[in-house]
């Protein structure tokens, strides 16, 4: 039995519940969170190690045999995302010691931060689609709570569209699950995959796939359904935005990756794939154009998240082992770099008390190291060599060229150029522009460590991208050829 698959759940649940027990003692809560998130990093590294050496790891909870019990599965894709999540969460935990205000902490910031990561872990490791739904709800409820912790009018105003759109998408998800259960009598993803592989999809299953498509599109902020994202992300402090950007949309993309490769392979429905393709390209374009139009630091970064989601969805849409591998690579690169940029923007915001670009300036002259860290992440996000974003985009473009999808390749390349323009805008306004006033950068040690750790992991990603990408290629293959997953979960006899 692979009991270690349960470790991440236990650590995060313990951290959250201990924070609830010691609700008054914020210092103790931060220590718990830090300790358990460090353990979380180790256990996800252990899971990745096991999966890499021994293949897909399966835990049948309480030893109920597979299509009937609750199953936890870790394949390479989920293990890699788990490790990336744990590293980013560890850094955010360190960062929030000094950059999340005391008021939010006293209202239970640590509880909800642990629970939101718990929801993401549940999504990554679950083997059946109803648990996917339940984990999504854990994630969403804690994100609602984190969004409204400050209870300012601004936050509450932005929370209403966010909450209502997400409730609608959850209900669509539930309806899809109901339809699937009605037609197959099971919700285990591997079982569904083996059941649907050789048979035509009935109308009921087709409808279910469209409902799931709608639900995931809303959660991953795909083109026509992204309105909830920019305003709500910009309303909260940067630490929480970084948590959101690394979890919420990525978890939506991961569900796309899982469900639309395993149960409903997207290539089997050319009509849905067509919609998916054009929506993905438009997500890319509109995200970056929206970012160009913004004038506040955090708004630019939050709107950018959408444009990056477009790349990932495009990769999924191409649907080959290389494209899927590149998608996961892009997701992890983006989680790390985006979180880093948001943390840096949080430091700037905290020391200057403003988010508007025009009132900031002269950072480069006075803060060389800090500016360099921002510079690194910004160039990496826009995909300049030799940084991680370059390799992420290179692999995606290579997959696109393989399919001779010139529209997609052209769009991805030009959007990447526009990303550079908007990063340039931030750089010019905040770092290069001359400003009289002397600034006092409130950069605490913990904050600096978290930013440096994230920058370093992005650099490691860039310099070892060759060997690392070999692992990703295997992950892409295991997503593409679902046989291994199905036999690992169900055993040989099915």
């Amino acid at each position: 039995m692979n009991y270690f698959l349960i470790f991440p759940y236990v650590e995060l649940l313990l951290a959250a519940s201990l924070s609830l027990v010691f609700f008054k003692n914020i210092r103790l809560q931060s220590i718990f969170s830090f300790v358990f998130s460090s353990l979380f990093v180790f256990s996800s590294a252990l899971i990745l190690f096991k999966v890499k050496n021994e293949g897909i790891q399966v835990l049948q909870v309480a030893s109920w045999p597979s299509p009937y019990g609750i199953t936890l599965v870790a394949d390479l894709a989920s293990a890699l995302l788990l490790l990336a999540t744990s590293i980013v969460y560890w850094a955010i935990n360190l960062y929030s010691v000094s950059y999340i205000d005391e008021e939010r902490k006293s209202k239970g910031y640590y509880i909800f931060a642990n629970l939101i990561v718990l929801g993401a872990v549940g999504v990554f490791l679950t083997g059946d689609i109803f648990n996917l739904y339940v984990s999504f709800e854990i994630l969403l409820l804690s994100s609602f709570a984190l969004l409204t912790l400050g209870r300012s009018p601004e936050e509450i105003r932005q929370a209403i569209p966010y909450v209502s759109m997400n409730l609608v998408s959850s209900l669509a998800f539930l309806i899809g699950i109901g339809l699937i259960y009605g037609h197959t009598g099971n919700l285990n993803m591997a079982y569904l995959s083996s059941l649907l592989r050789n048979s035509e999809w009935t109308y009921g299953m087709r409808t279910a796939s469209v409902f799931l498509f709608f639900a995931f599109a809303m959660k991953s902020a795909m083109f026509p359904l992204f309105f909830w994202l920019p305003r709500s992300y910009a309303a909260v402090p940067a630490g929480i935005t970084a948590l959101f950007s690394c979890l919420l949309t990525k978890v939506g993309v991961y569900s796309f990756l899982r469900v639309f490769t395993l149960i409903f392979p997207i290539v089997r429905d050319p009509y849905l794939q067509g919609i998916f393709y054009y929506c993905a390209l438009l997500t890319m374009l509109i995200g970056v154009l929206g970012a160009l139009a913004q004038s506040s630091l955090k708004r630019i970064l939050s709107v950018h998240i959408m444009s990056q989601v477009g790349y990932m969805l495009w990769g999924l849409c191409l649907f080959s082992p290389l494209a899927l591998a590149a998608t996961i690579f892009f997701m992890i690169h983006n989680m790390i770099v985006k979180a880093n940029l948001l943390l840096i923007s949080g430091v700037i915001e905290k020391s200057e008390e403003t988010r508007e670009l025009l009132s900031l300036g002269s950072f480069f002259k006075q803060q060389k190291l800090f500016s360099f860290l921002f510079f690194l992440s910004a160039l990496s996000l826009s995909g300049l060599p030799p940084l991680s974003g370059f390799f992420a985009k290179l692999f995606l473009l290579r997959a696109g060229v393989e399919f001779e999808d010139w529209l997609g390749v052209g769009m991805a390349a030009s959007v990447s150029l526009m990303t550079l323009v908007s990063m340039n805008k931030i750089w010019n306004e905040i770092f290069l522009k001359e400003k009289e006033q002397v600034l006092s950068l409130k950069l605490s040690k913990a904050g600096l460590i978290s930013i440096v750790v994230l920058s370093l992991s992005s650099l490691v990603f860039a310099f070892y991208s060759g060997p690392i990408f070999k692992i990703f290629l295997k992950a892409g293959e295991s997503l593409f050829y679902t046989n291994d997953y199905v036999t690992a979960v169900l055993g040989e006899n099915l």
Partner: protein
Amino acid sequence: MNFYLSILVVFFVTAGIYCLLQAHLLRMIVGFILLSNAANLILFVAGGLGSRVAPIVDNNSKVLDVTAMDPVPQALILTAIVIGFGMLSFFVVLCRDQFQKTAQDDLNLESFE
């Protein structure tokens, strides 16, 4: 029976979406209640309806009787109801806060930014 319940689901979804699109806080709450009940009803219909016996294995046999009800959808609905109720109560509190801060029920009238 399935047919009538499906018609009911259609009605619930239509009314729910209509209420949501009004952008009045109170109507949005009613819309959510209708929508979440529609989703629960679909799960309910998915299990199959009809006069069946409770899914309990009696002492003499080792497997369930074929006339027994499928127990899984009931567990699913129970979970979905709990989650839906939690979400709804959060949303109600959020609406109350919004109403207290702006004294305005209509989201369209209130100025953005």
